[in-house]
């Protein structure tokens, strides 16, 4: 028990282990805070960079795609759909599990990994 108390006292003088929020306290108005930041009156904590091998949202280069359907064959979540008319694919981000198997398999590098992770949206496509 004393060991825990000692450890807790030690922790009091250490920096928090968690990553910092952009602002220390929740602002009354986010817009006003952003305005202040743009004028240089307030400062936001910078975002933590994503790790080197991070697998984020997948970028699709429509022009490079040759419609070989290999990505559809390996995708575990059916996040890639084939469009018969154009002979191209459609990438559905809301189904994606970000395993990057399609990126590994693409013969023409039409699919690439991005660092984007803020993908919450009101629309499905």
């Amino acid at each position, binding site marked *: *028990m004393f*060991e*825990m108390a000692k450890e807790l006292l030690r*922790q009091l003088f250490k920096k928090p282990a968690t990553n910092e929020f952009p602002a220390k306290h929740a602002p009354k108005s986010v817009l006003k805070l952003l305005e202040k930041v743009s004028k240089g009156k307030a400062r936001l904590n910078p975002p933590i960079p994503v790790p080197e091998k*991070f*697998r984020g949202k997948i970028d699709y280069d429509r022009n490079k795609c040759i419609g070989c359907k290999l990505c559809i064959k390996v995708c*575990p979540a059916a996040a890639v759909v084939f469009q018969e008319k154009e002979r191209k694919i459609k990438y559905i981000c809301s189904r994606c599990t970000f*395993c990057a*198997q399609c990126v*590994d398999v693409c013969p023409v590098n039409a699919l690439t990994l991005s660092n984007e992770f803020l993908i919450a949206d009101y629309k499905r496509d």
Partner: protein
Amino acid sequence: MRLSRDKNSFKISVGPVHPALKEPIQLNCLIAGEKIKSVDFELSQAHRGIEWIATRRNPIQILYLAERICGICNICHTISFCTAVEKIAGIEVPARAQYVRTMGAELERIHSHLLWAGVAAHELGFDSAMHYTWKAREKVLDVIELLSGNRITKGIPTIGGVRRDFEEKNHAKIIEAVEYYRSVFGKLKAIFLDDPVIKSRTKDIGVLTKKDALTLCAVGPTARASGIARDVRQDEPYAAYPDFGLKAITPDQLTGEIKGDVFDRIVVRLLEVAQSADILEFCVKNMPGGKIVYEEKPIKLLAQLKGVHGEATGRLEAPRGEVFHYVKLVGEESPYSWKVKPPTYSNLLPWIPMLEGEQVADIPIIAASIDPCMSCCNRAVVAENNENVLNHDMLHRLSVEKTENIRGQLA
């Protein structure tokens, strides 16, 4: 087993959704006063039909399905599935891939055991200890990020190797993490094992004797805490474990005695954290060079797997115990059959001797002491044809009868 009630006893149900449980399971306890007289539980409250889905997918797609059987021990399920498929197809995994797999599995063990230690502390009411342990866990998650880019779900093993490598530039960070866990181990030992309150709350509580553990087929830390020195990494070494020469951990290595209580299960898990740190250091120092995957092109691999027939099993020591996968390929794109036996499945029956004779207030810590993972072990749903259960047809018939009854009265 059905619980039989008498005059002096009372039945309480804990679960399927209950604050003391993290996952759905129903514990029915028959109590007399504060003492638990007998226990029964109902499984399969979160069935997902994973094995059925797998029979409609190709092996590359199943890798990610297998990963989602369990959130915490995800890499173990994938490696286990890969091992089974590799055995059928006669694929040899390169040495470097074996080492990366071992490191992934050991990182996961550290992370799982520390997570469990935090949960155990929380169940006992030591929330500071929980946050301290979980803070210590962050370090291992950072190392997992170096390998896979993600914190928990890795997506790293593939059939015939691994998809990403632990490059030499990252080795210093792994060694740093190993040193950190060696220093943290001393502190965790002092917090968990020398504390008089934790000692009195866990010693001689939830005892599982060696005989019970053997007859009920307990696996993993639960079995080792009862003195069964059984570990797949020791008995049937795979990946890089033959090089390391691992010895199963039993609590007497630290305390000098084996009781099989909750305290012993904490001892085993903490010792395994230190052991995993040793294995990590060994792997970093002896990492062989060369390829990391047998066949780089997944499509070629799929074409090869389409032509093979046979059945095989994959065994692996997950943080909670032995994982067992059975795969049967019949020369088609999808496997004919895939059967998964996760460790919690074997560790549930030992709950009964553990809980009997204990107090109601000890249910959370005893239930948590086997590190249960309920949705892992939901392989089937049993719909009982019980008279007490009204299905749709019966309910409809009752309704029609009532209408006719009323019609008869009004006429």
